[in-house]
């Protein structure tokens, strides 16, 4: 079954396999229980979690290892239970990128989105580690000249 939704990215098409349940609402999007997983080649490798609110808010998600070499998210027991996580293989931890007008986007390393891909359930967690930034600024490394 295919559906259409108006979002801040324009109209998107999705099917049942793209629907993600939010058993616990994402801060800022109270009482929204559903989201849509969306990807588009023009934004790759950034993926999207489209919130099923009126305007179709779109959270840009990325694999934290794309911006940091070392990252660990300890998933609390209650989230493991809530998302019905049975095995590590079915879990993805993605961070929200925040586009900023005229500046490089920042990445929220402190509060990642945990996704159980098998059950299609997701929740945002807030990690205890105070060294993780809510607004991490990532700059690509300078191209290293090849040494002959």
């Amino acid at each position: 079954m295919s559906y259409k939704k108006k979002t801040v990215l324009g109209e998107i098409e999705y099917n049942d396999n793209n629907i993600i349940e939010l058993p616990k609402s994402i801060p800022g999007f109270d009482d929204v229980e559903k989201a849509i997983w969306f990807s588009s080649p023009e934004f790759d490798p950034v993926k999207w979690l489209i919130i099923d609110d009126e305007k179709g808010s779109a959270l840009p998600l990325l694999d934290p290892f794309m911006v940091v070499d070392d990252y660990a998210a300890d998933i609390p027991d209650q989230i493991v239970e809530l998302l019905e996580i049975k095995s590590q293989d079915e879990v993805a931890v993605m961070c929200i990128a925040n586009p900023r007008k005229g500046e490089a986007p920042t990445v929220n390393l402190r509060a990642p989105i945990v996704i159980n891909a098998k059950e299609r359930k997701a929740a945002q967690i807030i990690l205890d580690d105070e060294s993780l930034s809510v607004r991490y600024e990532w700059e690509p490394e300078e191209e290293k000249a090849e040494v002959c």
Partner: protein
Amino acid sequence: MLVLSRQIGESIIIDDDIKVQVLQVNGDTVKIGIEAPRKKTIYREELYLEIQAENKHAGSADTEDLKDFSEKLKSKKSEKTTPAEVVED
């Protein structure tokens, strides 16, 4: 809002299973002890509000800047493996 006065060492009970105790008062700082079931999440309000504001901004931000960001990530990642699709299309 319910406002209660408590002395050091005294507690309040919320919903039968959450206990909030005043441990210490030192000038402007109050030290609070919270006992709650593990499934309850407890945050400092300012952190929660910060994350809420970040989420709202990220969800409706202009995506033009993000395309440039994606390009940079793509060129960086071409050396490494690309992450697997989380959910199949």
